[in-house]
């Protein structure tokens, strides 16, 4: 039966994709299947809206390797008559998506921000021109691979209905890339993409120690500090996991406070889904004010501590 096939090497992301696949399955009439490979628990997938889960714990499936996983998914795709793939657009997911697309002769869009069924097929949106624009695009080939950004939708909740878990036998060639070791990036990595409040800082900050001004504000707001790319990659004041922007993470907080950030498009794409944007900048012409709900022309060294103090006072009064 023609299917939508869901895969992500991150279970949480796979569950989000299952949510999306459920929606699209109803509209397209396609069946929903999932691949649970390596260490993933097929049973957990089966309770989240797919009729069939193809599971394998083939020894070559650990650790993740794009080439091996592309072979595995090609083989599963043939079994389930996959028409549409939903893959998580993580770094590993993108590594896989390109190889798999070429292996299968499929069309592919990565980093999709949305995917909807419209009259004549699926339409995805993704950033173009470095994030200056958002393109709505369709794929023409009959086999289509969409890599969707994590946190695109809520993960599918476990339900009553239970799909069938099928152990597949895969015929895999080993990767020529030898995995030596993995080192966690840093302790205390935070979930920027899932955060409700972000305090974002940029080059308006003069020195590393001053990040604590932003941290204090983030702390009273129960949020996290994020930053523009140069602050992490050039200056190394914050870990890379805190980068917001085109090559970093995309936040969707209820509120983002952007302090000392000019608002270049490379940053702006990572924050423009925030519900409310508050900007503090000394330059009245800074682009960030154009994308802000509330802008305050002023020095972050003055304003942020004032905000922190005012919020503490408010909270204590409650």
């Amino acid at each position, binding site marked *: 039966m023609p299917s939508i096939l869901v895969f992500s090497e991150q279970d949480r992301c796979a569950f989000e994709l299952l949510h999306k696949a459920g929606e699209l399955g109803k509209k397209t009439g396609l069946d929903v299947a999932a691949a649970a490979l390596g260490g993933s628990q097929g049973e957990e997938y089966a309770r989240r809206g797919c009729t069939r889960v193809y599971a394998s714990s083939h020894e070559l499936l650990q650790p993740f390797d794009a*080439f091996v996983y592309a072979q595995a998914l090609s083989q599963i795709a043939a079994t389930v008559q996959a028409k549409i793939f939903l893959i998580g657009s*993580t*770094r590993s997911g*993108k590594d*896989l998506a*390109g*190889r798999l*697309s*070429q*292996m299968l002769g499929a*069309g*592919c*869009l*990565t980093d999709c921000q949305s995917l909807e069924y419209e009259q004549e097929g699926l339409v995805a949106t993704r*950033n*173009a*021109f*470095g994030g*200056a*624009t*958002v*393109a*709505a*695009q*369709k*794929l*023409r080939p009959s086999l289509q691979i969409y890599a969707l950004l994590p946190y695109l939708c809520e993960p599918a909740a476990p339900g009553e209905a239970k799909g069938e878990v099928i152990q597949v036998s895969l015929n895999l060639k080993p*990767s*020529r*890339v*030898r*995995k*030596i070791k*993995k*080192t*966690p*990036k840093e302790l205390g990595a935070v979930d920027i993409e899932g955060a409700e409040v972000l305090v974002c800082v940029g080059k308006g900050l003069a020195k590393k120690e001053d990040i604590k001004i932003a941290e204090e504000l983030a702390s009273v707001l*129960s949020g996290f500090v994020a930053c523009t790319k140069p602050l992490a990659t050039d200056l190394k004041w914050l870990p*890379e*996991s805190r980068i917001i922007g085109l*090559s970093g993470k995309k936040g969707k907080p209820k509120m983002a406070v952007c302090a000392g950030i000019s608002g270049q*498009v490379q940053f702006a794409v990572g924050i423009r889904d925030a519900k*409310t944007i508050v900007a503090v900048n000394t330059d009245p012409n800074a682009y960030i*004010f*154009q*994308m*802000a*709900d*509330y*802008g*305050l*022309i*002023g*020095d972050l060294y*003055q*304003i942020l501590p*004032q*905000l922190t103090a005012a*919020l503490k006072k408010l*909270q204590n009064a409650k």
Partner: protein
Amino acid sequence: MDIIVCVKQTYDLQQVRILKETRQPVFENVPLTLGSIDKNALEEAVRIREKAGGKVTAVSVGPETLEDTIKEALAMGADEAVLVTAPKLDSNESALSATLLAKAIGQIGPFDLILLGEGSTDNYSGQVGPRLAELLDLPQVAFTKSFHIEGRTLRAVRSLEDCLEDVEVDLPALVTVVSEINEPRIPAVTQILKAGRKPKKVFRPEDLGIQIGEFGFQLETISNLAPVQNRKGILFKEGAKDTPALVKALEEEGLLRR
């Protein structure tokens, strides 16, 4: 060490404006350049050649303007360039780009390493590297933060979201790099002058057995506009004096309740 670096021509995105009325990007008078992460890949290749010798070949696919834009890669230190050009060749068609790159690389002869940026500056799709690896039957090492070569073994550190992964691969291999890997050089004037005289081969897709019309396009772009910004645009201009007003506004929106 013979290294191939695949680069892509893009508009200098820092200079693209958006028309407020129509939300359309304006490319008039915007110069063309090479992708910024492509330059990291090129820089890495040139550094290896400076130490170990060999040759760096820049390979690219795009419209005819590429013949001029590629001088940037030659000025940065590539020894020669191999191009596939055709009018209006859309280099965002990842499958087509990867196929043409593979065909062009087939004209070069033996190589040890193919380097690319993890994604292009404009489209940032990240497909061409892995697609090319599949076409050329090469192992792929994506999102590389640093690497070195000992004999025929390449040792790389890949940068994933939550971890660094150390891997090894025997050459030839295809590696994509992240921008953190290095700081690309700004070429000296003498290098820029020399660039025009470096060897450059230009193919048409037909020369390589590809008819673009028959190959077909995979993508259809329905719209491509700057996103709608439905922002309130309330601006407080009095600096620190306005902080209480800002706090009040945020409080009224319910943003400060926990």
